[in-house]
């Protein structure tokens, strides 16, 4: 099989030292990534040197300022269509659109993370490794999901006596590192850069999942599950990269696409073996679909979404989704479009299985965060419906859907943060009974988000679903449209059940109450609700922007 290597190896080892040229780097094009990454590094310095009392304010201002600046840099780069750093990073209109979405949604997530009024000292533990003293940690799985959902309801009052509760401020730099990884992930034009970005975005998220102040065992368990499964999935991703390197002799997306179209380049080596291509492609896609939370690689999603602190759940549901689908779209559209007949049947099956799994399992959920997690799985299926069409309409529908879904889910999880009892958030659905009697405004906002999830007209849920389904229909994928519409109808049931529970049910004696959140959370919920309404009533501008931006640099 491999006798033809002699000449190449001889040429390789006789190459003169010193003939390496540093690649030219377009710093302006990379500025959004560099700003966020720089703010993350600066945040660590702040953590080390600033006085404890001022630390939280400094970190918050630094994070918000960096994200605003990075957003301005994305706008400034609008229209760019180039690759830089020897073709390792592609700054193109689709990449900039994804970057802009990640920055806007990340900004809202940072507002939720900064919430202090609902929980003294914020939602994050300062010493996450120790046992949780404020909550009786004996959940131990005794009561099943019910026990886990309302764990420690009685023990939560212990910490409220102390005057000054220490605050965890390390979450801000960790969030910024994760966001920087996401910004690089959607513009990576090279599988090695994509892998490094994948890890830069994942590693801080693993830690953030384990930092909850309340229900610490759940949080730590979520972190461990996410970490072990995430590391497992990234090993698959990398093995795919290694096999594709063997196939094409390069890991640049354009190089692999060229090898698929014209056979491997003679100067790079590589073997035009279908086995290497198909194995590498499938392993690579497994790693990416894991991050996107698509079935059958979805099993971490409910556990992690439930166990993680709610602001981090919002960050993952909104921003990680954008990043994962940005990378999936880039890989499929530029790298493997010539091999579409090989992977498309499989990915269509994955999309169908994802929609059905998410919709059916959402019905049985009793925990609001798990319900939103299964909803996010089903939504991953809807987004994949738009992506697999490989058409410009499909790509722009995917982009629009990601933004619309991000605003919805951030707002909904922001509302979840405010419904509380003495033990922290009251996530069990039965605790939401009769919420509308006590807090009509909050119940109304939540109802609006749930209707948007259900895809009712005049919300962004309707326009985004319409966009992906019409793109799939236009590409002749009728099976996806049929399953998608049925799955959306099934999903209406769990959403409306919660609405009915909030309005029609009598409030029980132990029903949760709504606490008034601080300004940042209120702002985040308001922006989420307004964006959901605006994208439903007047989706034109964003749809136009998405369809103008639906273009990858080759």
């Amino acid at each position: 099989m491999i006798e033809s290597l002699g000449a190449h190896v001889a040429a390789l080892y006789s190459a003169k030292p010193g003939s390496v040229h540093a690649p030219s780097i377009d710093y302006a094009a990379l500025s959004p990534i560099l700003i966020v990454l720089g703010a993350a590094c600066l945040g660590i310095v702040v953590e080390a040197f600033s006085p404890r009392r001022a630390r939280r304010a400094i970190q918050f201002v630094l994070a918000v300022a960096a994200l605003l600046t990075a957003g301005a840099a994305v706008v400034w780069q609008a229209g760019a269509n180039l690759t830089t750093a020897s073709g390792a990073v592609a700054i193109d209109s689709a990449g900039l659109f994804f970057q802009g979405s990640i920055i806007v949604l990340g900004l809202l997530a940072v507002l939720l993370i900064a919430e202090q009024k609902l929980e003294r000292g914020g939602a994050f533990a300062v010493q996450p490794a120790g046992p949780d003293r404020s909550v009786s940690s004996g959940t131990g799985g005794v009561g099943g999901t019910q026990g886990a959902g309302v764990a420690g309801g009685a023990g939560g009052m212990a910490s409220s006596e102390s005057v000054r509760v220490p605050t965890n401020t390390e979450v801000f730099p960790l969030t910024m590192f994760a966001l920087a990884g996401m910004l690089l992930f959607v513009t990576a034009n090279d599988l090695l850069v994509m892998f490094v970005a994948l890890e830069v975005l994942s590693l801080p998220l693993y830690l953030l999942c384990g930092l909850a102040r309340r229900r610490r065992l759940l949080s730590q368990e979520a972190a461990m599950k996410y970490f072990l499964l995430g590391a497992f999935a990234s090993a698959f991703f990398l093995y795919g990269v290694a096999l594709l390197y063997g196939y094409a002799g390069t890991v640049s997306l354009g190089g692999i696409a060229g090898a698929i179209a014209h056979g491997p380049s003679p100067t790079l080596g590589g073997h035009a073996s279908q086995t290497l291509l198909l194995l590498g492609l499938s392993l690579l896609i497994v790693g990416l679909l894991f991050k996107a939370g698509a079935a059958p690689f979805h099993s971490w999603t409910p556990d992690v979404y439930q166990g993680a602190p709610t602001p981090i759940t919002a960050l993952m549901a909104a921003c990680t989704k954008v990043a994962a689908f940005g990378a999936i779209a880039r890989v499929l559209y530029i790298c493997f479009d010539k091999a579409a007949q090989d992977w498309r049947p499989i990915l269509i099956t994955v999309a169908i299985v994802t929609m059905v799994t998410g919709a059916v399992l959402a019905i049985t959920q009793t925990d609001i965060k798990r319900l939103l997690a299964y909803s996010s799985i089903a939504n991953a299926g809807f987004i994949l419906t738009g992506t697999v069409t490989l058409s410009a309409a499909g790509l722009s529908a995917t982009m629009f859907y990601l933004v619309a879904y991000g605003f919805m889910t951030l707002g909904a999880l922001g509302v979840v943060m405010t419904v509380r009892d003495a033990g922290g958030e009251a996530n069990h659905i039965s605790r939401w009974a009769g919420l509308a009697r006590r807090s009509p405004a909050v119940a109304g906002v939540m109802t609006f988000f749930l209707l948007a999830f259900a895809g009712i007209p005049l919300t962004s849920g309707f326009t985004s679903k319409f966009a992906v389904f019409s793109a799939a229909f236009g590409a002749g994928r009728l099976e996806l449209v049929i399953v998608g519409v049925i799955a959306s109808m099934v999903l209406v049931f769990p959403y409306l059940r919660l609405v009915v529970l909030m309005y029609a049910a009598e409030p029980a004696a132990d029903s949760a109450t709504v606490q008034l959140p601080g300004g940042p959370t209120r702002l985040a919920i308001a922006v989420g609700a307004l964006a959901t309404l605006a994208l439903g009533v007047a989706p034109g501008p964003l749809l136009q922007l998405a369809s103008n931006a639906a273009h990858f640099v080759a």
Partner: protein
Amino acid sequence: MSPTYYLILAAALFTIGAVGVLVRRNAIVVFMCVELMLNALNLTLVTFSRINGTLDGQVMAFFVMVVAAAEVVIGLAIIMAIFRSRSSTSVDDANILKY
């Protein structure tokens, strides 16, 4: 000796690692199996580098090692946190989150 043998060895190691992740109970051992998978694919990268006659694969192996080291730091920190609150690193004991 044909470099193909190294690819087969790497595939075998990767499979052993993947099976280990699925069947072992201790979080540390599961994590070591992930590391075994990463090392197997490093071997794949270096072998393909030799076969293709380019240095890219060797450079990528260094990147993988660095990222794996960073992953160890995060992973052991999480497993330590679990161990301090549960006195156990068994992945079967961490079963509050389900259904």
